[in-house]
């Protein structure tokens, strides 16, 4: 039993599934929040998959999501501006999710990888995720 893959599977079914549900219904603001949450979860899923398959090179995908995910959310907040409304539902989930999720995934992976270039890359992804999460949750809240 590979616990990394099991965790990734649980995140896909129990995290990305509800995000799709949230992005498919309700006002525009809530949908963008769901999309932002999905990019965060995707980044964590990709990290877990990379560890689960024992392929450090797959981490590049998580790195790309960590920078392009927030960019995508900012596209929506920028161009849907007036439709989004103030404080869309689910906004307050974003900050705790990123503050718990990113360290909970990155720290065990760093321990598994040991010190070195791989661990530095993981820490960079964690920092990018937290910075991106902080900025996007702020942009979403303002509407």
């Amino acid at each position, binding site marked *: 039993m590979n616990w990394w893959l099991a965790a990734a599977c649980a995140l896909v079914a129990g995290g990305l599934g509800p995000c799709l549900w949230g992005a498919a219904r309700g006002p525009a603001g809530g949908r963008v929040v769901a999309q932002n949450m999905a990019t965060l979860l995707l980044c964590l899923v990709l990290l877990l998959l990379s560890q689960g*398959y*024992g*392929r*450090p*090179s*797959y981490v590049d995908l998580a790195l790309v999501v960590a920078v392009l995910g927030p960019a995508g959310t900012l596209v929506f907040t920028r161009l849907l501006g007036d439709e989004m409304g103030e404080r869309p539902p689910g906004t307050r989930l974003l900050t705790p999710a990123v503050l718990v999720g990113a360290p909970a995934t990155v720290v065990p992976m760093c321990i598994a990888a040991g010190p070195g270039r791989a661990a530095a890359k993981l820490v960079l992804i964690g920092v990018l995720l937290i910075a991106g999460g902080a900025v996007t949750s702020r942009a979403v809240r303002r509407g």
Partner: protein
Amino acid sequence: MSLLPYLIAGWIFLVGVHGMATSRNLIHAVGCLAVTQSSTYVLLLSVGYRKGATAPVFSDVPTSVPVVDPVVQALALTDVVVGATVTALLLALVVQTAKRHGTVDPDELSGLKG
């Protein structure tokens, strides 16, 4: 299980075509075309999958491990990026249509000429 991925690719294709045919907005139709395109990626990569194998990228694994089929991946990879620029071309056509005719509803357009 041995048929599921192929059938899902077929489902995505059919649902995308249905969306394009019943669309009342050309931008929506372009979005449905993007959905239809994604069915081809799913089909290609499902055909190339090998159980228990890993990606044919040998930067971090020995060259003796079993790997999945790289040919279909190369096909899908270029297709993804080129598909996006084709989507851009179609969106440009929609913008041009909106300028000329003042509508993006295909049903209203069918009566117009030129």
